């Protein structure tokens, strides 16, 4: 079955330090992978996606993600965290068995401390 796992419920990082939010997936065939961010009481905002090509994908707000096929991972990264990066982050994979659905991770709360 297609699935996405975000193993960390919460990640705490000091401002200015690098951050990583982890995501692993299980799909049939080649995955389409996505990261979204959600601020309180707001809809999800698309950050970046991997479809094909370079394993390092750059997205909005200075975020990037690295696709690792052998480890079936798609970790979200940023070299220097900002307090304003504090939010809920979701990883998702497109289900090739159903063209219309995204399979979502449970979300990781990122807290950046000044």
């Amino acid at each position: 079955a297609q699935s996405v796992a975000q193993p960390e419920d919460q990640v705490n990082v000091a401002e200015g330090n690098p951050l990583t939010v982890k995501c692993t997936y299980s799909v049939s065939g080649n995955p389409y992978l996505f990261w979204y961010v959600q601020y309180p009481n707001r809809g999800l905002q698309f950050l970046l996606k991997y479809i094909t090509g370079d394993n390092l994908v750059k997205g909005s707000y200075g975020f990037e993600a690295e696709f690792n096929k052998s480890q079936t991972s798609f970790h979200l990264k940023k070299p220097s965290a900002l307090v304003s990066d504090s939010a809920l982050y979701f990883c998702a994979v497109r289900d090739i068995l159903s063209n219309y659905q995204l399979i979502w991770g449970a979300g990781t709360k990122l807290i950046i401390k000044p």
Partner: protein
Amino acid sequence: SQTIHQWPATLVQPVGSPLSLECTVEGTSNPNLYWYRQAAGRGLQLLFYSIGIDQISSEVPQNLSASRPQDRQFILSSKKLLLSDSGFYLCAWGWDTEAFFGQGTRLTVV
């Protein structure tokens, strides 16, 4: 460019009352449309998705229904709300890859 509108932003409804949440998309045609519910500020539960007018699939049995009367309009309804229907409801649109979300509706059933 494409935009998605979802309203209202917040709603407080008594148990047993009806519900209608509306979502419209501009700047695109024949999008896939989705209704999600997010409980306790965490995981997303797909409620309904639609690939075209009058083509709606339900993902979970529940007290809710969805309709798509026009290509870019998606409506979430209930005849009688339950306390358990409280949550944050999100509409989204997309094609074959990513989805784009509305701002959400915070529904509180009292």
